[in-house]
């Protein structure tokens, strides 16, 4: 296989890591929505932690993106 082709395939495979972040974000927002429908009074004070969790979860997807970029545009 040509190195260039292997590079493109590798970059594509690296983006698979974003799937995990997608699952995590789905769980996060789904569970928040469920909880806030069950107890709307408590929803407001937990929204801050929703966004902190969003940031932490999303980082994993962003790492996958950065690695894909590193494979594509370096070396």
């Amino acid at each position, binding site marked *: 296989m040509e190195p260039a082709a292997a590079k493109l395939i590798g970059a594509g495979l690296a983006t698979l890591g974003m799937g995990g972040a997608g699952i995590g974000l789905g769980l996060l927002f789904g569970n928040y929505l469920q909880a806030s429908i069950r107890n709307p009074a408590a929803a407001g*004070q937990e929204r*801050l932690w929703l*966004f*902190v969790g*969003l*940031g*932490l979860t*999303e*980082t994993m997807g*962003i*790492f996958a*993106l*950065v690695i894909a*970029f590193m494979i594509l*545009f370096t070396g």
Partner: protein
Amino acid sequence: MAAIDPLHQFLVEKIVPLPPIQIGGFPLDLSITNSVMMMLVAGVLVSLILGLASRGDLIPNRVQAIGEAFFGVVETTLVTPIIGHNGKPYVPFVFTIFMMVFVMNLLGIVLSLGSLAGFEWTFTPTSQLAITATLAILTFLTVLIVGFVRNGLGFFKLFVPAGLPWPMVPLMFVIELISFLVRPLTLSMRLFGNIVGGHVVMFIFASFVISLGIIGLGGGWGSLGFLGSAASLTMIVLLTGLELLVAFLQAFIFAALATVYLNEVVNLGHGH
């Protein structure tokens, strides 16, 4: 297909070249690049708006209401709920970081139209890892300094969770230390990756508009390309809206995590 280079928009170019300054034998290049230019614009804009906002009147006018709204985001939804009444001294730090990141993100999206008008200095400073890493390291050092000043050597209790059985202490110490030291990396990568990713996606859809439009001009069945072109244009409009949200959200998350990290050292030992 037109040549697509989605990363060209992140090139740092000199606008006002200055001769390098020698400091201790190292050449220091202080040229005004497009990145520096946008940071200056952001700094002036923030100072101007907040300067006009700080009138201190009982009945706020429009600018003061904007300034108070931004300050409220940081003080009443971030610092006070997370740190508690000890958090007052850290509000200015978090507020500065929040405003700078927010305005730099926002200018990157709003002024990206400027590159169409021929301004070559439009740029998103937060798309440079150097700038996000500087902000992250600043936050990390602040946490370190505050931690040692407030707790002395008790700072190391941060790495040993309370109520831990003693055989676990060495293992947990190493794990907690690694997760502490990796914070500047995650903090900078998150902002950088979000902004770069968002702008690259917008650029790729923009290049679809052009290339599918060129296919559409070919006539015949190729005219269907106009449909894809129009769909891509709609997508850019929607993505711009999403990116405006991301610009705020990433600034908010950066400030929120900085506050959470500060809280750990401010309220160390007496869990808030």
